[in-house]
């Protein structure tokens, strides 16, 4: 079962929930895999002592334009949905704007004059790691300067999914646009982590509307409970949305987290909370089969 840990708002505690939940699943005797798909700034593996076992360079299509063969017909620029081919026939100028290119290869199909050469460029690296208990971890890391976030996320999840595991936990990128959609769409269940502030609620609403439109199952974890106001709770109860757990707004939790430790290991009530969370997810998984 694949579980995305996502949020609308950034900084609500996706990594906090992912890292602790992962440990809880393993303690309950399940095989679990932690995947950091927040490819623009992956950091969930900081919480474990790991050894790298493998890495795969992820590449994406980028055309090479040979202007000496170009007849300036403009068909490649017409085919390009993303306006990634800068083309001024009056000045005999043609070139690729790599940051706009999505690697769809339409330009290559368009060109009948051999002016477009197929080629691939590195967009990032998917690494796999192992801990002392032989548990596997995957991390997708986008190359500096690359804007190909989506292909990087897809590749990270695809590679991790080849592993046999009871639970694959996907620490997702923030937001509610493409990166969020691409992680959620590849998951059987989405845990939305939010906080009871106006910002948390506003972004959670967007995330929920998005997941509803995708017919995805989800539940909500309220982090920093006690902060803000009750609007979030009203919204969740009005819409019959399941609260999977509440993590209190606490200095102790923040202290443990910022030291790189797991509250699951250090705080009894948090240990219990995460075990309960596991059971809820397991029950949900059983209800599917």
């Amino acid at each position, binding site marked *: 079962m694949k579980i995305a840990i996502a949020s609308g708002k950034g900084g609500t505690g996706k990594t906090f929930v992912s890292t602790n939940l992962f440990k809880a699943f393993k303690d309950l005797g399940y095989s679990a895999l932690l995947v950091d798909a927040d490819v623009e700034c992956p950091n969930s593996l900081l919480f474990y002592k790991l050894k790298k076992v493998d890495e795969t360079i992820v590449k994406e299509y980028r055309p090479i334009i040979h202007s000496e063969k170009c007849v300036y017909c403009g068909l490649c620029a017409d085919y390009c949905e*993303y*306006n*990634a081919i*800068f*083309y*001024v*026939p*009056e*000045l005999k*100028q043609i070139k690729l*704007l790599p*940051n*706009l290119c999505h690697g769809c290869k339409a330009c290559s199909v368009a060109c009948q004059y051999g002016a477009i050469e197929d080629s691939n460029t590195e967009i990032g690296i998917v690494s796999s790691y192992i801990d002392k208990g032989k548990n596997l971890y995957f991390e997708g890391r986008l190359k500096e300067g690359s804007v190909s976030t989506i292909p990087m996320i897809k590749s990270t999840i695809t590679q991790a999914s080849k592993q046999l595991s009871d639970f694959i936990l996907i620490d997702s990128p923030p937001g509610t646009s493409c990166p969020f959609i691409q992680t959620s769409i590849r998951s059987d269940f989405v845990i939305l982590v939010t906080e009871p502030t106006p910002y948390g609620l506003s972004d959670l609403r967007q995330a929920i509307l998005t997941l509803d439109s995708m017919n995805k199952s989800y539940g909500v974890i309220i982090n920093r409970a006690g902060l803000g106001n009750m609007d979030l709770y009203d919204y969740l109860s009005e819409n019959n949305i399941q609260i999977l757990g509440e993590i209190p707004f606490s200095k102790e939790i923040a202290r443990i987290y910022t030291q790189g430790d797991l509250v699951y290991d250090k705080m009894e009530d948090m240990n219990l909370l995460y075990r309960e969370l596991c059971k809820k997810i397991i029950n949900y998984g059983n209800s599917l089969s």
Partner: protein
Amino acid sequence: MKVAITSKGNTLESVLDSRFGRCSYFAFYDTESKKLEFVKNPNLNVNEGAGPLSVKLIASYGVKKAVSGEFGFKIKSLMDDLSIQMIVVNEEKTIGEIVELLNK
């Protein structure tokens, strides 16, 4: 010499549009013939790449100078390659006032 000025409207009284790629109109002014022509920006609502498409547009008009409030990072190198000089105007000026300055 031809100059492109980004404009919010299509009259001399219209003010400079501070955005380059997604401006409402381009005012093309020829400093020799003193002719002024307004062209609605066809790239106003494209999803991506409005800047480079607008560079293509003004380049096809033979422009050598562009006046706007701001030029994005995607287009600066394109403008340099085509030897189109970029002039940034931060004050709220009308097209008429900018044309006057170009004639000085």
